[in-house]
């Protein structure tokens, strides 16, 4: 069964450079720097222990996929990485999440600072009901950039970075809500790029998109990883196999297995991982 899955993966990704191959190369070469090092991290929603003793070391310029059945804590985990989870008042945490060596859970760490370095793309496209231009310029503006020329350049660079410049360059002043769902999602990615983050968190960014838009976003992720570290939650196993270098399998709030994507999909160490990726439960 697992072998079969792998075959289809290989076939599907034959024309894109398979990330697992790239990882295969890179493992032999230098170990990359750590961006997010999570140590013994726990999180509760009131009495509900949603994340249990998480230990994960996420490296830079890689795509890290987080997979697992619904309700296992994937969204909770990536929202913990930019402390968005704190918007839920009943949340309590302990342990450590070190971002580039500094524990973001320390009271002295300003969330605003963290979130300008760690951008986020959400499951449902959520552009502001403003023009495309104002959407992209939102981030730079809140960080104090007022110069029109600089803003123009950032907007163009970000839209190009999100592979949507050609589609929208003639209607930057139109409302972003006039775009299709897939375009809106790429606008949101561009908006995230405009704050020039270090890490991009993506929570099921393609779950509301059609196959073609999905493909575009996936290709985009591939391009972006040269300059950014990307952590992506996905329900789609093929997607994880196609685009990620490493994969973490979550189950009931625990990390069952975390390894190079090709290893996870070919020779998982844990029986539960094998069961999940072969579709036997979840």
């Amino acid at each position, binding site marked *: 069964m697992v072998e079969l899955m792998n075959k289809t993966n290989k076939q599907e990704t034959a024309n894109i450079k398979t990330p697992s191959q790239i990882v295969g190369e890179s493992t032999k070469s230098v170990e990359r720097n750590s961006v997010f090092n999570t140590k013994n991290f726990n999180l509760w929603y009131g009495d509900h222990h949603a994340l249990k003793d998480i230990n994960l070391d996420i490296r830079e310029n890689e795509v890290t996929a987080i997979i697992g059945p619904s309700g296992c804590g994937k969204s909770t985990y990536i929202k913990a990485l930019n402390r968005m989870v704190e918007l839920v008042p009943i949340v309590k945490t302990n342990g450590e999440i070190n971002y580039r060596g500094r524990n973001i859970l320390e009271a002295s760490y300003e*969330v605003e600072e963290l*979130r300008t370095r760690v951008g986020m793309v959400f499951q449902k496209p959520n552009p*502001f*009901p403003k023009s495309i231009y104002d959407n992209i310029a939102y*981030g730079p503006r809140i960080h104090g950039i007022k110069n029109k020329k600089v803003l123009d350049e950032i907007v163009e660079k970000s839209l190009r970075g999100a592979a949507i410049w050609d589609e929208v360059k003639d209607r930057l002043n139109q409302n972003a*809500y006039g775009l299709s769902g897939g375009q809106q999602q790429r606008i949101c990615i561009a908006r*995230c790029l405009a704050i020039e983050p270090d890490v991009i968190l993506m929570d099921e960014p393609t779950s509301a998109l059609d196959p073609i838009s999905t493909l575009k976003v996936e290709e985009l992720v591939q391009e972006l990883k040269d300059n950014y570290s990307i952590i992506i939650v996905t329900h789609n196993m093929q997607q994880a196999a196609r685009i990620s270098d490493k994969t973490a399998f979550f189950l009931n709030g625990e990390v069952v297995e975390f390894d190079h994507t090709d290893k996870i999909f070919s020779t998982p160490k844990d029986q539960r991982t094998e069961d999940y990726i072969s579709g036997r439960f979840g």
Partner: protein
Amino acid sequence: MKYIDDTVVMKRMKSRLKYNSIWKMIFLIATTLALLTLVILLVRIVTQGSGYLNWDFFNNFGSRFPEKAGIKAALIGSVLLMLIIAPVSMILGVGTAIYLEEYAKKNKFTSFIQMNISNLAGVPSIVFGLLGLTIFVRMLVLGKSLLAAGFTMSLLILPVIIVASQEAIRAVPKEQREASYGMGATKWQTITRVVLPAAIPGILTGSILALSRAVGETAPLVVLGIPVILQFLPDGLLSQFTTLPLQIYDWAKRPQEAFQYVASAGIIVLMILLVIMNSIAIFIRNKFQKRY
């Protein structure tokens, strides 16, 4: 096995359709009755009052003679009163709404405050008049002035503005705030750049409707002891004044028949003022409404 028996369904179809049309008739009659009353009222007022609507009517002060009675002091008094109520009630109301929705922790204390605000919206206006009389007229020694009445009326409509603003703020999708916070925006930046622009139409609509309630209100002013007739224009915040509803009330209770017509003319003016305010509210809602 089938649970739904076709023959039974067909047998009951006729009576179901009949009930359907009976209820439709009942609702139609209710609407017609309401509209009819309104039309009769309007027609009566317009036919009675329109004869008195001329330049002199707008330019004269109150008088013992119906032909000489005018609405100048009352109209200007009402407008000035509104100019006090609008900023006072909106700054306090929107501020409170922002605090409760965006900053306050959700605990027993805030839900207690919340409950009281909703209850205050239902307190009879005359009670607010008594409050204003005690606090503004007597304790703060503002007298029967524009300022005292403006503060009293602001308090009266404050709960309505708070609740309307809270609803408008709450209607801004959570995803919009997340997008803003996710880029490192502070709470204040998120409120001014995302929440308020989206909530402003709702806030303004609610506030203008509340304001028009204040413009038509008499009871609290009667309690404050605001004069019903005045021969001069207010010359400052602490000056005496009168308003349209008070003036109309005074004319309507006079024995001479001609004053009934003068009162009707006053009502027309008041109604035009209210229609203008409501149209502004509708215009703002349609113009700035954001769809997600």
